[in-house]
């Protein structure tokens, strides 16, 4: 083989399943790979792992915001179903409890949006010639879109029925 030549290799090799303890996942061991020590102690992850570090806790909070958003969507669907009775028979939800639930769900939705949009610059890699679009620009466009869509919806709610 000449200098710089690279052998033709493919990625279609199957990877065997993990062992019982999950530590032996991977391709068949190379002959030079030393055997797995028989007495290795398998340390388990405690149920409270997410309390151990701030990053884990913030992750769990981020994920749980989806529960509040889902709850609000279910409430919204129920309201649509109730509205089918017609304007005369429809009594919109109200009262302090409904307002409190709405405020909590709004806070969860805003936090979810903030975490999602802030990470957009990391997630999205948009090629532009031989470079990529700046993550800061991507995040800016995302937030701009959020403000624009919110303004349109607010406008429809405030003036759409007039």
């Amino acid at each position, binding site marked *: 083989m000449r200098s710089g030549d690279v052998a033709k290799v493919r*990625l279609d090799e199957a990877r065997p399943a993990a062992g019982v303890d999950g530590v*032996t996942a*991977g391709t068949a*061991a190379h002959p030079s790979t030393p055997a797995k020590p028989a007495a290795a102690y398998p340390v388990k992850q405690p149920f409270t792992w997410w309390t151990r570090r701030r990053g884990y806790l913030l*992750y769990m909070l981020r994920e749980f915001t989806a529960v509040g958003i889902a709850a609000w969507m279910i409430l919204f669907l129920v309201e649509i179903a109730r509205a089918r009775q017609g304007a005369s028979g429809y009594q919109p939800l109200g009262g302090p409890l409904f307002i409190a639930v709405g405020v909590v769900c709004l806070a969860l939705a805003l936090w979810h949006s903030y975490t999602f949009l802030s990470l957009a610059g990391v997630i*999205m890699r948009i090629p532009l010639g031989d470079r990529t679009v700046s993550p800061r620009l991507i995040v800016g466009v995302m937030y701009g879109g959020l403000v624009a869509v919110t303004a349109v919806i607010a406008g429809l709610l405030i003036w759409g029925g007039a």
Partner: protein
Amino acid sequence: MPETITLSVTRFDPDRDSAPHPQSYEVPYQEDWVVLDALNWVKAHVDGSVNYRWSCRMGICGSCGMNVNGRPKLGCSAFLRDYLPGPIVVEPMANFPVVRDLVVDISSFMDKLKWVKPWIIREETAVGPGEHRQTPAQIDQYRQFSMCINCMLCYSACPVIPIEPEFVGPAAIALARRYELDSRDRAGQERLRTLTGSDAIWDCSFVGECSAVCPKGVDPAKAIQQTKFESTLGMLLPWGGR
């Protein structure tokens, strides 16, 4: 400034112990000492049976990964002065079986690393003898992901690994991404298919701690999420998101 600091080191002798347990050592406090220096002092002056991996002492070899006060760190970059007044709890990296003391079994990681084929793949023979030139812009595409030293701290920080042991994991996917973005590599779509299969990118729930603990700023979470984004575009767009 204290004269000594307490080091609580996890000990495990598979021939004698049923489970790992902590053992405390008083070590001299030095302003410029790191945890690895303290362990070396213990091994040289107090207890020669303490086992741990190390080599370069300068954050390059990636051998001395361990949990210091619960956080995955390189022993050679964890300064004692950052943990005053102590004690400093030194444990083996999480999410790996413990072989002895601070030494963990890394064979699962080595297998995962081989699986993503972290080398340049070309279907044809080389474009010619000699150099495969790249522009600075082409190098910038993958430079960050090429900084990985295989220290496995990201595996120790990842809470998905113990739940999904077959998950290929942060470093291996970052390396796959590094070659996928390399203009000399010709297996981009094939790598993408591999990474979008089982046990790969979709096992990641984007906790992000892999990137937080990376001593080289590789940002494996970014590599994984970018691959998710591109594979999704590949399904939606006729030109495959590229």
